[in-house]
C-alpha cells in the first residue's frame, strides 16, 4: 500500500470512520457486548416514586432474601462519599439519604445473578415516604426563589437607559423545551475487580477521568486504584459527560464488596427517567431598535430549569448568555441568567450546552423586530451583524475571525433565497390553508471550555520497532469520528500511512487527568496533543539520524513512508528499527493547553473562547394551518469547519447535528405529569427524528476557510455548532405562524400559534 508520492489517510482526506464496517456488521464492541465472566452480578437501582419526599422508613429485608440477590446497597453502605456531583457541589447523592429530590432518584441498588432477578427483588422493598411540596416548574421556582446558583449578568453599554431612548421598543417571551439525549446505547458500566481491591471499569462515558474520580471518591480509595476504559460509546451528546458516574460507582461498590464482576446497564425507560436532559428555558426580553431595524438596546433574561442539583448548570447557563448575541452587535445589552432548582432530574450537558437556547432567544428578537417594521427578516439580521468596527461582545471579547457576513451572503445566493421568498409569498397568497415559510439564520459558536482548567489534553504515542504505531489520548469516541481524525493527524505528522496507526481505547491508566470529550473541543485538544507527541518523536528520530549517520539537519527528510538521510533512503520501518537498535526512546507523550483564554465571572468579562465557528442555514417549510403539521421541504447549509481534517466526517456531523436540532425544535416533547413524573420515557411516546425526517432537498457545503488561530492543521471544531443550524427550521415555521410559538413546535403548538393574533 505504501506510496512514494503521498501517504494514505492523511489530514484532509475524506476517509470513513474507523469503525464504519464494524458498526454495520455488529463487531464494534460496546460495554454491553463485553463478555461478562460467569459469576458476574447485575445491578438495578430502585427509582423514587416521589418528586420530593422524606424517607421515613425503609425495610429491604425481603429484597435481600429474594432469589439470586447477592447484595443490596443503600447510602449507609458507602464507605467513601455519597456524592457524584461533577463540580463537587455535594448535591448529587449516589443513593438517596433520608430524602428524595426527584421522581426517579436512585434510593437503593440490588445486585443479583441476573438483571431480571435484581429488578424483581427491588419491587419487594417496603419504603415509607412523607411527601413534601415539590417545585415542578420554572414559574414555581421563581416564585419561591429556588435556585441552584447565583444569577450571572453580562452587560455592555447601558441597556436600561438606551431602551428609554429607543425609537421603537418591543417585549416578548419564549418558552423552550428540553430534550432527551436518546443515545442508542444507554448508560452502561462493567466493573472487574482487580488485586488489592482495585477496580477496572469499562464504562460508556465521555469523561473517563470523572468516572475514575467519582468511583474512587465513593469507594474511599485513591484514584490510582481505579482504571476506567472506554473504547467507544453508542452516542453521547453530552448525556455521558456527568451522567455515567453513578452507575459505574454502584457497580464498583458491588465489585469491591463481593469480589465479583458487576455490571449496570440502565434499561431505556430508567435511562430516560433517571438521567438529566437538555435544560428547558424561559426567555423574556425587551428590545429597542431604530426604523432600519438596528437593535440599539436589549435587556434579556434567560431562566432555566436545572432540576434538583447544580451539575453543570452554571457553565451551561453561562454559555447560553455567551451566545445570546449570536452574530449580532448590540451596543447596549444586558443578559441575566437565572438557574432554577426544581424537583426534577438534574439537567445536564447536551450538544450546544446552553448556546442553542441563547441563540433561540436572540433569533426570536430579530424576527420580532423585522415583523414589527415589516422588513425582510434576513435584511434585519444582516444589518445587525458584527463588523470590523463593531466587534466587541457583551462579555468583552473582540470578534476577530468574523466570517458570518460572507457565509450569509454566499448562502443567500447559493440557495436562491430572494427568489424563493418571493415565490413563497405568491404561493401563500394563492393558498388558503397550506402555507410556506423560509428563514435564513446564522450562527457563531465559541470554542473552548468556559471552565478554564478543562482546556488541557494529553496523548501517548508508541512506535514499535517494526514501524507500527499505537495511539492513545484522553478523548473518547462516541461515533463522532474523533479517533479517526486524531489518527489522521498522527499519520500526517509522522508522514506514514494511516493503516500503521493503531487506534486504542481511552484509558485513565495511559493518559491521566483528562477532560471530558465535550465543548466540541475533542479534536482541537487531543489532536494537538497527539501532534505534539508525534513531533517529539520526529525530533528524536531526526537527532538520531544526524548523530548516527553524521549528516546535517537539513539532510534528514521525512518523506511519505520513508526517511531520506543524506543520499540513503530507508523505509520508515527500517529507519525506526535502526533507531531502536541504537537505543532511541520510541515512545512520547504530548500535552496541550489552549492558549489565550480567560474569563472573570465577577465582571462578566474576558475572552472565554479561542475562536468561533460559524455557519448558516436556510430552511423552507410547508405548514398545514388546519392541523399544524409542518414539513421541512428544503434545507441549504453553509458551514465553517476551518480547514477540514476529514470532509466526510465533518459532513456527517453537520447533517446529524442539524437533524438532531430539528428534533429538539419540532418533535421531541418531554411531558411531565402533575406529580413530577416523566410520562414520555420510551420511543413509544417520545419521538426522535429518523431517516425519514431528512429533508428531500438537503444541500450541505463546507465554507472555504482556515482557522485564524493556531489550531491543529488550521481546522475548526464541528461537534456542537451544526446543532444550531436547525434554528432556521423553527424560524421558517414561525414565518407562517407568527405569534407566540413555543418550542418544540409540535403540530398542536403550531396550530395554537396560528390561531393567535400576531
Amino acid at each position, binding site marked *: 500500500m505504501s506510496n512514494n508520492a503521498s501517504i494514505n489517510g492523511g489530514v484532509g482526506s475524506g476517509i470513513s470512520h474507523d469503525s464504519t464496517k464494524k458498526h454495520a456488521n455488529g463487531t464494534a464492541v460496546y460495554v454491553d457486548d463485553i463478555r461478562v465472566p460467569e459469576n458476574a452480578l447485575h445491578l438495578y437501582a430502585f427509582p423514587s416514586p416521589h418528586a420530593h419526599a422524606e424517607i421515613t422508613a425503609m425495610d429491604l429485608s425481603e429484597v435481600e432474601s429474594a432469589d439470586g440477590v447477592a447484595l443490596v446497597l443503600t447510602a449507609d453502605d458507602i464507605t467513601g462519599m455519597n456524592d457524584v456531583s461533577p463540580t463537587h457541589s455535594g448535591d448529587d447523592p449516589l443513593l438517596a439519604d433520608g430524602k428524595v429530590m426527584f421522581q426517579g432518584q436512585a434510593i437503593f441498588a440490588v445486585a443479583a445473578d441476573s438483571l431480571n432477578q435484581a429488578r424483581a427483588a427491588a419491587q419487594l422493598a417496603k419504603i415509607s415516604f412523607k411527601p413534601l411540596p415539590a417545585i415542578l416548574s420554572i414559574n414555581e421556582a421563581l416564585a419561591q426563589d429556588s435556585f441552584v446558583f447565583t444569577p450571572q449578568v453580562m452587560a455592555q453599554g447601558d441597556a436600561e437607559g438606551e431602551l428609554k431612548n429607543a425609537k421603537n421598543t418591543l417585549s416578548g417571551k419564549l418558552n423552550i423545551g428540553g430534550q432527551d439525549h436518546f443515545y442508542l446505547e444507554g448508560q452502561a458500566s462493567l466493573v472487574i475487580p482487580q488485586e488489592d481491591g482495585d477496580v477496572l471499569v469499562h464504562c460508556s462515558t465521555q469523561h473517563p477521568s470523572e468516572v475514575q474520580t467519582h468511583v474512587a471518591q465513593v469507594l474511599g480509595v485513591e484514584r490510582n486504584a481505579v482504571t476506567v476504559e472506554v473504547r467507544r460509546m453508542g452516542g453521547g451528546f453530552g448525556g455521558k459527560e456527568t451522567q455515567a458516574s453513578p452507575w459505574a460507582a454502584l457497580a464498583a461498590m458491588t465489585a469491591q464488596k463481593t469480589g465479583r464482576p458487576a455490571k449496570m446497564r440502565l434499561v431505556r425507560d430508567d435511562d430516560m427517567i433517571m438521567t438529566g436532559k437538555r435544560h428547558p428555558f424561559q426567555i423574556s426580553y425587551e428590545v429597542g431598535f431604530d426604523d432600519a431595524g438596528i437593535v440599539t438596546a436589549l435587556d434579556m433574561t434567560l431562566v432555566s430549569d436545572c432540576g434538583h442539583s447544580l451539575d453543570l448548570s452554571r457553565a451551561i447557563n453561562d454559555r447560553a448568555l455567551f451566545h445570546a448575541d449570536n452574530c449580532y452587535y448590540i451596543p447596549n445589552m444586558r443578559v441575566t441568567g437565572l438557574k432554577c432548582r426544581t424537583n426534577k432530574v438534574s439537567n445536564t450537558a447536551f450538544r450546544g450546552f446552553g448556546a442553542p437556547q441563547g441563540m433561540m432567544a436572540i433569533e426570536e428578537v430579530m424576527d420580532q423586530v423585522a415583523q414589527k417594521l415589516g422588513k425582510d427578516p434576513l435584511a434585519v439580521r444582516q444589518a445587525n451583524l458584527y463588523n470590523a468596527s463593531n466587534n466587541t461582545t457583551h462579555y468583552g471579547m473582540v470578534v476577530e475571525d468574523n466570517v458570518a457576513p460572507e457565509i450569509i451572503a454566499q448562502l443567500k445566493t447559493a440557495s436562491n433565497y430572494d427568489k424563493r421568498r418571493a415565490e413563497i409569498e405568491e404561493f401563500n397568497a394563492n393558498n388558503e390553508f397550506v402555507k410556506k415559510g423560509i428563514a435564513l439564520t446564522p450562527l457563531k459558536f465559541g470554542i473552548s471550555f468556559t471552565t478554564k482548567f478543562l482546556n488541557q489534553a494529553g496523548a501517548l504515542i508508541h512506535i514499535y520497532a517494526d514501524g507500527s504505531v499505537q495511539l492513545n489520548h484522553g478523548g473518547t469516541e462516541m461515533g463522532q469520528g474523533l479517533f479517526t481524525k486524531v489518527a489522521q493527524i498522527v499519520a500526517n505528522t509522522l508522514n506514514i500511512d494511516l493503516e500503521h496507526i493503531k487506534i486504542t481505547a481511552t484509558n485513565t491508566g495511559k493518559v491521566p487527568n483528562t477532560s471530558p470529550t465535550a465543548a466540541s473541543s475533542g479534536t482541537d485538544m487531543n489532536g494537538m496533543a497527539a501532534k505534539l507527541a508525534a513531533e517529539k518523536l520526529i525530533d528524536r528520530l531526526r537527532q538520531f539520524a544526524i548523530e548516527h549517520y553524521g549528516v546535517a539537519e537539513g539532510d534528514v527528510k521525512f518523506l511519505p513512508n520513508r526517511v531520506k538521510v543524506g543520499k540513503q533512503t530507508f523505509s520508515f520501518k527500517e529507519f525506526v528499527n535502526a533507531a531502536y537498535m541504537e537505543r532511541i526512546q520510541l515512545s512520547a507523550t504530548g500535552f496541550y493547553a489552549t492558549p489565550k483564554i480567560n474569563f472573570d465571572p465577577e465582571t462578566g468579562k474576558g475572552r472565554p473562547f479561542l475562536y468561533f465557528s460559524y455557519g448558516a442555514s436556510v430552511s423552507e417549510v410547508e405548514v398545514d394551518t*388546519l392541523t399544524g403539521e409542518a414539513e421541512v421541504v428544503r434545507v441549504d447549509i453553509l458551514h465553517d469547519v476551518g480547514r477540514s481534517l476529514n470532509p466526510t466526517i465533518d459532513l456527517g456531523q453537520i447533517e446529524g447535528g442539524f437533524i438532531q436540532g430539528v428534533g429538539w425544535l419540532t418533535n421531541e416533547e418531554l411531558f411531565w405529569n402533575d406529580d413530577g413524573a416523566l410520562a414520555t420515557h420510551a420511543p*413509544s*411516546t417520545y*419521538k426522535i427524528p429518523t431517516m425519514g425526517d431528512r429533508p428531500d432537498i438537503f444541500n450541505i457545503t463546507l465554507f472555504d476557510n482556515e482557522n485564524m488561530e493556531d489550531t491543529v492543521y488550521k481546522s475548526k471544531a464541528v461537534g456542537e455548532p451544526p446543532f444550531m443550524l436547525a434554528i432556521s427550521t423553527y424560524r421558517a415555521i414561525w414565518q407562517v405562524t407568527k405569534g407566540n410559538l413555543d418550542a418544540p413546535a409540535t403540530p398542536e403548538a403550531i396550530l395554537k400559534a396560528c390561531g393567535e393574533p400576531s
Partner: protein
Amino acid sequence: MYKFNFASPATIDDAAAQFEASDDATYISGGMTLVPTLKQRLAMPSDVIDLSKIASLKGISLDGDMVKIGAMTTHAQIASDGLVVANIPALAELAGGIGDASVRNRGTIGGSLANSDPAADYPAAVLALGAEIHTNKRTIAAADYFVELFETALDEGEIITSISFPVCKVANYQKFSNPASRYAIAGVFIAKTSAGVRVAVTGAGPYAFRQNEMEAALDGDFSAKSIDGITVSDDGLNEDIHASASYRANLIKVLAIRAVEAIS
C-alpha cells in the same frame, strides 16, 4: 417475565373450556398489546391461552355482501388481501396504516377489537361500516360493541371468532398519527353505506363514536362545504400527553373534510 401456564388449544371450544377452568386466564393472539402488559405486570394472569393454532379463526371470505374476516387475521394480511382490497379498499388501507411493519405482521383484528384501545384504528371502520362481531356465543352489532374506555360488550372469556364487514367501495379513513407510536390521535372513517353516510371517530374519545351531525349534513349534500360550518365540541374528548381535547376536536373536522375530499 413471570411464570404462567401456557396452552395452544386447537378448537374454539377447547379454548373457552380452558378459560373457564382456570382462575385467571387471558387469551393471546398477536401479543402486541398483551405481552408488554405482562412485562410491566399491569396484568398477571395465571393462564395464557394462545388462539393462534385454531384454524377456524383464520381466513377471509366473501359471504354474500359481507366480507368476513377471521379474528386471527393480521393487519398485514388485511392490508394486502385481494378480497378486502376489491370490496372494502378503505379497510385495507386502514390496516396498512397501523403501527409499523412488525406490529402489522403480528397484531390481529380480533386482538385489536377485544382490546378496544381508544386510539386503535379498526373501531372507526367497524362503526362506520356497521360491522358485526361474531363470537363463540353470539353476534354483536357494531353499535352495541364499544361500551367504555377499554371496555366492550364481550363477556368474560368470550372469544371473537370473526368480523363481518358489509361491502363498501366508497369510503375513506383519515388519521392523525402519533409521531412516535403511529396510534391515532384522532381518526375519522367516512363511508357511503346503504343506510346512508356514516362518520365514525376514533382516537378522540374514550371509545369510538359516530358523528351524527356530520352524517346528517353529508346525507343532504356530500361535500366538504356541508360540514365546514359544523363546530365539533371538545366536550368529553381525551386530554392526555399526546394532545389536548380542543386539538382533537379540531382534528375531527379537518380529518372529516379530508376524508370527504378523498371520496369526492
